[in-house]
Structures are given as structure tokens and as C-alpha cells.
């Protein structure tokens, strides 16, 4: 019984942190460009592969992580410059479909470069338990995931609320036309937002691949579930993304404990439906977002 509680607690916090890192990436892109990016799952896998490539050159894990995150950020910004710059001012749904197209293109690219087979990343940490919670061992990797989430969330929150760049990001999301008229460099701000969002997602992707394995497809389901977490919290709220992630991770971990592993994904979507039916704007979202 205590072991179950321990599993529940650790699972909620670790999975929730991973969802939150991806979710913050979602929110920052949505809040600055109005794009709901369904290619986040593909960017997670991309992060994993870039990390793998970096470690193969002999870089120690921390530098490999930084290199992978930076490269994914650059690719994200490049995606904006190449494709989404032309779609500034387009309607929401074509943008969503465009990100779905991007997702398949990225997936194919990864399959061509790295092949479809499942790989295991070289362990960055020793996998023995640092300490136990109610009998549930907690590894250095688990701690790393939580620290990553805290750093990502704190950094992004500081950026959006406190800085000139953050305000300008919100201004671009508010109206890209008016931003252009007010001499905000919409392209620069949007490219930065894409880069930042993809970098965060890639970091989460590295953590995801370190915890399990790496292939071009598996992480995509996880990326979508992370989006469900964001919606549960509220699409435009950082706090919502964090709380939604924890709620979803709790529901999923409980479902897996009670019903078995195959129920993990479907419970996430049932939870999403329940939230959308009862509180469409999410737990912390601002109602105005519903007027899309």
C-alpha cells in the first residue's frame, strides 16, 4: 500500500514535470505567435536524436544536452523562417494542420537519417536509487527531470512577465498586424518564440528518451498527451500548464496502477473530455481564449 502511494507520488511528480516542460513550450509558442504546435512530439524525438549524435562525438552528457537543445532551437527558428513566416495572420485551424504536416515531414526526415529502429541512449546517470519515497526508489534521472522542469518554468515565467522581449511576445500574440505597425520585429520575436519552444521540447525529449528508449514515433503520443495536459490547465496560462500536467500525471499514474499500462493514454483523453465539457477554458485559462 505504501509502495503504491510512493509510486503514485513519484510518478505524478516525475511524469508531471516532463509534461510541464513540454507544456511550457506549448504555451510560450501559443502566447507569442498564436500557433498550436502539434509537431511538439516530433521535436521531442528530434531532441533525443540530436543528443545521441552529440554524445557520439564524445561530448559529456551535459554539453551534449546543451548542444542538442541549442540545435533543436535553431531548427525550430528555421522552421518559422522557412514556413510559418508566410502564414502570419492565417486562421488558427490551417496553422494547426500545417504543424501536423510539419510533424510528418520531421518524422520522415528522422527516419531517413537515423532509421526506424529503437535505440537506447547512453546512460547519463547511474541508475541506482538516490533515496526512496514510501519504498519507491528515486534515481538521479528522476531528479534531473524535475530540476529541468523547474528551471524551464522559472526561466520562461521570468521572461514572459518581466522583460521587454516577453511583453513584445505577448504583443505579437495579441495582434501581429499592430505589432508590425508599432515597429516590433514580428519575425524576430516569432522566430525566438519558436526556437525557445522547440528547445524546451527537445530538452524534455532527451529526458524522455533517457528514461525509456528512442525512436521517431513513440514520443509523439507523449507529446499529444502533454498537449491534453496544457488544455486541462488552460491554453494561455503558464501556471495552468504546470497544474494541468500534475493533474494529468496523477490521473494517468492512478489508472496504470489500478487498470494496467495500456490504459495510460486513453485515460488522458477521457480526462481531457471531462475538463472540456465542464470548464472549456481549462482550470486557469482566461475565458476569452474560447472566442477563437
Amino acid at each position: 500500500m505504501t509502495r503504491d502511494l510512493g509510486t503514485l507520488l513519484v510518478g505524478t511528480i516525475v511524469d508531471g514535470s516532463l509534461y510541464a516542460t513540454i507544456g511550457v513550450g506549448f504555451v510560450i509558442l501559443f502566447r507569442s505567435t498564436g500557433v498550436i504546435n502539434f509537431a511538439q512530439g516530433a521535436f521531442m524525438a528530434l531532441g533525443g536524436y540530436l543528443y545521441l549524435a552529440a554524445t557520439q562525438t564524445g561530448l559529456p552528457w551535459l554539453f551534449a544536452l546543451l548542444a542538442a537543445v541549442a540545435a533543436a532551437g535553431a531548427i525550430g527558428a528555421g522552421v518559422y523562417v522557412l514556413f510559418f513566416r508566410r502564414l502570419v495572420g492565417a486562421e488558427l485551424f490551417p496553422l494547426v494542420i500545417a504543424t501536423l504536416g510539419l510533424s510528418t515531414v520531421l518524422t520522415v526526415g528522422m527516419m531517413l537519417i537515423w532509421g526506424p529502429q529503437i535505440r537506447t541512449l547512453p546512460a547519463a546517470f547511474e541508475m541506482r536509487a538516490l533515496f526512496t519515497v514510501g519504498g519507491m526508489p528515486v534515481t538521479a534521472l528522476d531528479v534531473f527531470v524535475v530540476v529541468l522542469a523547474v528551471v524551464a518554468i522559472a526561466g520562461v515565467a521570468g521572461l514572459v512577465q518581466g522583460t521587454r522581449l516577453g511583453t513584445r511576445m505577448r504583443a505579437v500574440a495579441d495582434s501581429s498586424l499592430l505589432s508590425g505597425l508599432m515597429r516590433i520585429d514580428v519575425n524576430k520575436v516569432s522566430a525566438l518564440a519558436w526556437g525557445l519552444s522547440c528547445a524546451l521540447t527537445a530538452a524534455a525529449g532527451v529526458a524522455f528518451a533517457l528514461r525509456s528508449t528512442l525512436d521517431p514515433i513513440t514520443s509523439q503520443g507523449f507529446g499529444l498527451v502533454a498537449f491534453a495536459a496544457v488544455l486541462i490547465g488552460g491554453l494561455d496560462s503558464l501556471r495552468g500548464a504546470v497544474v494541468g500536467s500534475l493533474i494529468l500525471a496523477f490521473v494517468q499514474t492512478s489508472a496504470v496502477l489500478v487498470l494496467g499500462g495500456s490504459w495510460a493514454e486513453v485515460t488522458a483523453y477521457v480526462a481531457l473530455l471531462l475538463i472540456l465539457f465542464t470548464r472549456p477554458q481549462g482550470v486557469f485559462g482566461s475565458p476569452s481564449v474560447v472566442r477563437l
Partner: protein
Amino acid sequence: MRQFLALASRFGWIVVPVAFVWVLASGDRYWQFVAGLVIIYALSALGLDWLMGRAGIVSLGNGALMAAGAFSAAYLSQFEWASFPVTLLLVTALGGVLGLLMSIPAARLRGIYFALVTLALHFIVVFVGHQYQQTSTAFLGGVPVADPVLFGYELELGVPWLLFLGVLLGVVWLLLHSMYAAHPGRMWLAIHENELAARTIGVVAPRWKLSAFVGSSALITLSGGLLGFYTGRVSADTFTLIFAIGFVVMVIVGGQRSVTGVLLGATAVTVAPLLFGQLTRDLSSGQAGFLGWLRDNVFVLNSGLFGVFVLVVLLYLPRGVVPSLAEWVRARVIHGAAPSATPAPLSAASTEAAEVESGEPPLLEIRDLRLTYRNGARALDGVDLGLRRGELLAVVGRNGAGKSSLMRAVTGFYRSEGVTLRGRVAVDGVDIAGRSPARSARLGITLVPERDKVFGGLTVGEQLRNVGDIDAAKDAMPNEWELLESRWNSPAGLLSGGERQILAMTMAASLRPRLLLVDEMSLGLSPIAIDRVTRALRDLHERTGVTILIVEQNVDVARGLADRVLLMEAGTLRPLGEPDGSPAGAAAAREGSIDASR
């Protein structure tokens, strides 16, 4: 040529039946099977277009509905009493019920939120399908569906199946076509264009949305049932998210609100990977190098083909292939007929309006500017204008005269707005026509738009500090600074109309523009607010000498403020107050004289 294009745009749909008959007669079993699949997918895509293109409800639910149709067909077909036609009828009815259920969340959720409900439903339905398959080991490779028997004849793959599907598609096509051309089609279009406006003119939006849900879901579920019978086995593995998205891609690629477009989209998305695969196999047998690489990776490349499709179409033909083609043809046909329709040479009055008295070159010079929106509406029809450095010019005119279009034409449009601009717009002698708003803003052209003139989600302080330049803002509007400071921490969306206009003008002025454009400066403001805004703008002009162009509906305000007032009508400019016999000119002149006699 023009006649050919006109004929082609009218009878282009004939390609579809011709292709059908050709495949039917070819005797090629493989392509006949593929053609059957295309028709089944096309039925599903037509259902989606009904919902998305006509009623404006976006959905990713095709996979879920088709899975429901396929599994229920498999389940029902094991019973003795459930013949092929009865099973299809029951499956279609089930689809209608599912549509009824889906319309419940759709009443509360809009746009992308509803699309996400359908996404969640997709995963839930597929999960249920997987669980059902696990109830028996015989089902693990897919639940078998009984062989279809139609009126005593067993429907075999090849010609019989294809004929059956072809007739079915023809019937559905005719039904949809007559429905879209009649009352229901117009109701859905009204809701699609503007639901609020549709409701106010008496369209019962919920009932029409419900009917679109029931009808389209029945069609999509039927196509799922057909898919089950056609392939003989139903497996949940078929209905991936990519499968569901494929139908959205078909509709977007082919073109929403075009039956021919949807059929083309379904064909392209289904056939392109097969053709590509065959082509690489034929080309690269036994070869190494690039072709060999292509052959080894064709399966992977094919899985991403529709991603490329959708990106290319969204970026270059945002309305889809067939509507874009039809538009191109229409433009050709109309363009060819144009000579008789070109307007008469510019009147003496409008060229006179452009004359600039001093010898100095104008700051803003507009020559023969013509602007056409994507839907073909022409907003500017040969505008000439010269604006001296330091001048304050007002353009008056009624709603729809083209005033705001003139302002936007000076600042430029985004590519996604799909506006065609012809003529010259020069600032300091540099032609800037066709530049994006951001680029012209960097040249020192600043527009205060009619709507969305401030960032509603940012506080007054945030905008002035982080978007504009706070010191320049204080310099530009010293008399209004107190007002702005008193609302410092309030989101700009909560300001009154007058306060909003002051904030917008302050922000614009803080950029120290070379040319300041103010669209509908006094529209919707109370007389007191109009006075305040007018005073602020006059102060700004007198103190900084900035060149200003304003658009107004209120002739008194324009006369009181501007050095010169022009009248815009039907996309052309002329000086205000010169009766030219036209009612508008006379009316404007009357208003002008009232103003002058005051």
C-alpha cells in the same frame, strides 16, 4: 482560349466520371481496387467537407467515425438476419446517432476546442476497438466481415464492387450538390461566414449545425462500414491519427466547398504514394546510388508525402487546388472581357487633387493605385494623392468608400491577406507599394488602425514601456500624460474608446514617425472624447510638425483639423465641396458649406 477556359471551369467535373469509366473498363484489378478505396475515402472526405467547409465546424473525427462504422459492420454482419444492405443502413443510422451525440459538445465549444474533443474521441474509439479485438484470439489480426451479397449477387472485388461504389458516389454527389445549391446550403454558408450575424437575421444556427452533424457523421460512418466490407477485415491498427488527419488533408488540398476539389484531394492523397512507389520501383530496379536509396526508402518517404502536400498547399494555394484553379480561370475570363469594363480616364478633379502646389517633392505620393481583395472586390480604383511634408490632410467618405483600404495600402499587407495592389506608393521618392506592414513601419510610416489599435491584453504601462518608447511618448503627448498615468496598470482592453484612441496615438507618436496615419479617428466616440482626441492630434501636429493623414466620417471634425480635405467615393479621391452633379458630391458640398457658414 477564353472560351475553352470558361468551358473547362464549367464542365471540369466531367474528368471524374471519365476517369471512373476508364479504370472500370481497363480490366486492371490493382487499379480497380485502388479506385474503390478512393471512392470510399472520398465519401468520408465529402462528409468532412459538409461539416468543415459548409457548416464551418472543424473536426478530426473521421478516423473515430469510420472505425465505429467498420467495427459495427463487422459485428452486425455475423448475424443471419443482417444482409449487406440492412447492415449498411444500420451503420448509417448509427452514424446519425453519433453525429447527434457529437453536436452536444459542439454547442459549447468553438473552433479548435471542438477539434480537440474529436481528437480525444478518436483515441477513445480506437482504444475500445483494440479492447474488442482482444475478446477473441480470432480477432487479433482484425475482426472478419462477412462477404457482401447484394440482391442475391455476391459483390466480388473488381468491376462489381467498383460499379456499386461508383453508383453510390454518384447518388451522394447529386444529393449533396442539390442540397448545397438550395436553402440548406445557404443556411450553412451563412453560419460559416458569421454565426452571430446569421443568428441575428433569423438563421436557427443550432438546428442547422445539428443537421450538418447528423448528415455528415452518417456519411462518414457509412464509408467506414463500406471500408470494412471492402477489405474483409477490421483492425483498430488501421485507424491511426495520421489516417484521421488524412481526410482533413484531402479537403484542404482539394479545396473546401468544392465537391470536385474534395474528390481530387481524396484521389491525390490516396494515389500519389502508390504512384510514387511504382515509379521508383520501375526506375531503380537493381540500381545503386540515389535511385537505389529512393527505392530503399520509398515506404518512409511515402508516409511523409501528405505532410509535404499540406505544407505546399497551405503556403502557396491556401484555398486548395480546385478553388484556386477556378479563381485563376475566372480571373482570366474576366480579364479578357475587361476592356469594356475599364473605368473612364481619370477625371480632371481627381488629378487636380493630386497636384501639389509647392515645387518640393511630396512626402507621400500615390499614383493610379488600384487594390483588389481576394474575393474580387475592388476597393481602390485609381487613386492619386500627393501629401506635402508637414501637411495635415483628411480624407472623408462613407463606409465602404475605400478609406481604410487606402490607409492599409500605404502601410502594406501581409501575404496571407491575399490583396492585389497595382500602382505607385512612394515615400520620399522610394516606391514602397507591396511592402509588408513591418517594413513600411521601419521606414517611419505608422498607422493607428480603426480596430485593434491597442494591445488589449497588455497594460497601458507595459505598452508604453516595452512596445513604444516611454520618453518619446511623454514628449509627444505632454497634455495627455496624466490621463495615461492614471490608467497605468489597467489592461488596454478595458479602456474607454477615447482613452484607447489617446493611448494608440501616443504609442504611434512615440515612434517619431515620418508619416502618421490615423484611421477613423473619431468613429464611435462621444463629442467630449472627439474634442479631446482632436486637440491631442492638433497639439502633436503643431509641436512636432509631423506629416499626418487622417480618415474621418465626420466632415466637421475633418474641416476643423486638416489643412486640406478630400472626399473618397467608390475607390477614387476628389477635393471636397466641388459639386460635380453627383449626389454624393453635392451632399458633401452642402455639408461643407454648412461647416463654412458656421
